[in-house]
């Protein structure tokens, strides 16, 4: 083998891939362009002096801390994806590489505001974890073992499930940031939050288009998508962030039933519009499960 000329081993320039078909699903979302446009540090856009003049209240700082914790949890989510079949999806991997990078800098911008208020940001996250939170974290540690096996048994349809979760998370966090912005009513904070929303809309679009294409192609992919966003999933609370912190955040940014209703609508609406995922309402389910809203309270 070693004597055979190296280039002669290629078929139409390829060493491994087939020459007659595409292996990777392409959607209208331009991953290449997204990776080129990656947004780095946002610190220059955070007007720290404005916060010294008009500081955020302790409640708003706690809300911001929540958003910070969610944004910092990226690697935990990446972990779920890369241990599974989805790791073979090179185009998704290219997206996630840049997505994680942008989220790092979003978290960093939140941190800059917390620092400007003299908050200690050096230590590890300390959460008031309940028993349920601890069980969840323990299970999460074991998940790579089971996930690596069963997702590879099922193959590519699983990807739709993970993309649907990404979609629901982005849509929910977009709605949450909006609710936080409305509640805070702070111009400089708003400028940054709206900047973040613009970045997140791009992330949301990737997951939306990716989910949409996959669920339309395969009924089994659609089933995975529905199951993934329906069970054991809270789009606004990553593993490691406590139920208490989540409840406090919702109560703080949505003081009235009307506010909660609006948040739910904006978060869950995108998945409702896609026939294959309609009826899942991930955030509403999560709110009911984590005891924030009573099932009948909103009617």
């Amino acid at each position: 083998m070693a004597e055979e000329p190296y280039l002669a081993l290629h078929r139409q320039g390829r060493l491994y891939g087939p020459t007659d078909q595409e292996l990777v699903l392409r959607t209208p979302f331009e991953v290449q362009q997204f990776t080129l446009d990656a947004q780095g540090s946002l610190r220059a856009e955070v007007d720290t002096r404005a916060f010294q003049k008009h500081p955020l209240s302790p409640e708003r700082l706690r809300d911001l801390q929540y958003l910070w914790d969610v944004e910092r949890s990226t690697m935990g989510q990446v972990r779920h994806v890369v241990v599974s079949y989805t790791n073979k999806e090179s185009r998704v991997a290219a997206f996630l590489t840049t997505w994680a990078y942008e989220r790092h800098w979003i978290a960093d911008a939140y941190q800059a505001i917390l620092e400007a208020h003299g908050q200690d940001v050096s230590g590890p996250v300390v959460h008031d974890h309940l028993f349920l939170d601890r069980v969840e974290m323990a299970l999460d540690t074991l998940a790579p073992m089971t996930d690596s096996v069963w997702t590879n048994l099922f193959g590519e349809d699983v990807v739709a499930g993970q993309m649907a979760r990404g979609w629901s998370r982005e849509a929910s966090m977009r709605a949450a940031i909006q609710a936080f912005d409305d509640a805070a009513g702070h111009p400089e904070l708003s400028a940054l939050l709206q900047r973040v929303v613009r970045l997140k809309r791009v992330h949301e679009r990737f997951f939306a288009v990716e989910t949409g294409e996959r669920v339309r192609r395969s009924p089994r992919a659609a089933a995975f998508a529905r199951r993934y966003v329906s069970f054991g999933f809270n789009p606004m609370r990553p593993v490691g962030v406590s139920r208490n912190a989540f409840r406090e955040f919702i109560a703080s940014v949505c003081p009235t039933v009307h506010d909660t209703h609006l948040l739910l609508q904006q978060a869950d609406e995108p998945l409702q519009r896609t026939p294959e995922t309609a009826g899942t309402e991930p955030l509403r389910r999560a709110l009911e499960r984590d005891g924030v809203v009573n099932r009948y309270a909103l009617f």
Partner: protein
Amino acid sequence: MAFNIDKFAETSQRVKWADLDMGEFITRPLPEKTLRCLRYMCDVEYHTVCYMRDMLVTPSHQDRDVSTFMTMWNREEYWHGEALAEVLGLHGIVVDYDELKAKRMKLGWSEALKPLKQSLLSNMVGADFIATHMAWGAANEWSAVAAYRRLADLEKHPVLAVLLKRIAAQESRHVAFYATQARRRLESSRKAQRLTRFALRKFWAPVGSGVMDPDEVDHVMRELFGGKDGAHEIDRLDHNIAKLPGMDGLRIFHNATAHARESYRAEAVSA
């Protein structure tokens, strides 16, 4: 403080080549043996996401510094892959999403079950396993620096040399992180030292082994580390590892490349 994570993140950039005259590769194409090395390196760079995965199954991802590093590192390595894919593309070798997926599918269950294996080990061994990962990463990054510099020197192609040295400069930053982490974690635990020493001695193989065909690993090691200068480079690499706490006397690079360097010698004699 040998390594500042915030500074690392702030200065993390994708490697650039837009300012280089890539047309040089058309007028002065690279020889096959070099393309073969570049393809190897390119695949390994894109494969970083798999090394990151192995790290993520340990509790280390809850550590802020580690998680920040992995975010930046993974992206830098991705762009190393892109840069090398560009060079290969100019020689008619296609490395795109389909090619990468085909490669990963070909690896099949052996690759798919790695998280299971890593996770079992991590849960059995506990926090000391992170030290081993860091030492392992340091070894990989040290060899990446050496490999890119060697190829730049050997090939003496005006554009390739510049590009590879840019990549090597980023690899040096990766070394700084891993070596600092490894040193700190090894210093504080004798058990971590014993475990790491055992793992490196028993299992370490050049980056890309188990992912690339053995023939390819052999080719790259022969090309880059055959001959006198190569042997010198291997000694330097071993010296770096030996300086980590509890690793003195280890010769993992020497042992892992012995076969390839021997076959280089045999070829040189017969030629």
